[in-house]
């Protein structure tokens, strides 16, 4: 099993007070935890890569823990989540797909009983590439107020033989959400969708 070699980590926390409308008493907070790791499969086609998912589990959990701590440490205030990966130029998009299971596992484990699928995106990119990580409500994917996204990236990553991994959590709806749809207060919470 390849070991996880971490070059750097970044925590990014945004507090949003308004966006031209009324200033909220409680700002919406969005946070991202990023880790830049060596891609053990860079440079050649490797058929069997799936075992690496299990190796990534502890890193995913520690990223989720760091992110939750930076957002105050209380899992019940986390309402939205998302994940993503940018694979350096000597890797394949399939290497980014290795993050689906460990990234999702990490946040579900920590947030306790989150029902919705963790929305995700990924791409191959150069250092400084930006990723718009999609965000949806953790218990019901169709909650329209929580459809969101957070742009993340690191100026010097991913290098060609690296993967940048990202987890995102939010504490509430878009700051001036007002386009209708399913509300968080209407969640049935049975199927992770509504």
């Amino acid at each position, binding site marked *: 099993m390849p070991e996880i*070699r*971490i*070059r*750097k*980590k*970044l*925590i*990014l*926390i*945004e*507090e*949003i*007070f*308004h*966006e031209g409308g009324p200033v909220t008493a409680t*700002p919406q907070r969005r946070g991202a935890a990023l880790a830049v790791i*060596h891609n053990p499969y860079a440079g050649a086609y490797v058929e069997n890569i799936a075992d690496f998912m299990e190796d990534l589990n502890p890193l995913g959990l520690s990223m989720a823990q760091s992110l939750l701590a*930076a957002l105050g440490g209380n899992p019940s205030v986390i309402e939205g989540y998302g994940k993503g990966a940018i694979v350096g130029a000597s890797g394949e998009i399939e290497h980014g797909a290795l993050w689906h299971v460990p990234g999702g596992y990490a946040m579900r484990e920590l947030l306790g009983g989150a029902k919705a699928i963790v929305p995700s995106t990924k791409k191959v990119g150069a250092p400084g590439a*930006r990723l718009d990580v999609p965000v949806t409500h953790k218990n019901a994917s169709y909650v329209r107020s929580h459809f969101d996204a957070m*742009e993340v990236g*690191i*100026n010097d990553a991913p290098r060609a033989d690296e993967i940048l991994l990202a987890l995102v959590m939010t504490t509430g709806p878009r700051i001036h959400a007002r386009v209708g749809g399913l509300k968080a207060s209407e969640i049935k919470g049975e199927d992770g969708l509504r």
Partner: protein
Amino acid sequence: MKAKIRKIAVFLEETLTEMDRPVDPPTRRAAAAAVIENPCAGKYVEDLSELMDIGEELGELLTQKAVAALGIPGNAAESYGKAAAVGENGELEHAAAVLHPKLGTPVRRVLGKGAALIPSSKKRGACGVSLDIPLGHKDAAFVRSHFDGMEVRINDAPRANEIVVAIAVTDSGRPLPRVGGLSKSQIKGEDGLR
């Protein structure tokens, strides 16, 4: 508070390896950035004292946020820097008014010391523009291991009538410094230079 803040973003970056060599302890740096309304946007304003007062407020707020992200007492900080990006309806002089006259005093108060000039950069730009915040040792500007820079950006700022103001604080220098010069153990700390 005079500053009308739309959002605040805090970045915490840790470097654990560089070229596969461990960085032990990891180098850590934090930046806090506020997106504020530019009260002087869209017209020529002779007296920029309102922006200077805003700079004083942000000097304290952003330094506290950066130090809190690092989880260190203020006097354990090693280097610092500041920068601002003015939206397209503002002048470069607005960035100067925020950064130069009054921002430094509260920064130094939070950090306990800071004999050296706070290195700075400024620019005008659109949403998502990157700021390269220059970094230098806070007590002796010539400490070569601490000459550095930290890139930050916020995808949705500055809008035309906004300013992004950022302060970076570190508890370390570059990851693997080896180009000689004055080292931090040689600081006399009398003139802010050596």
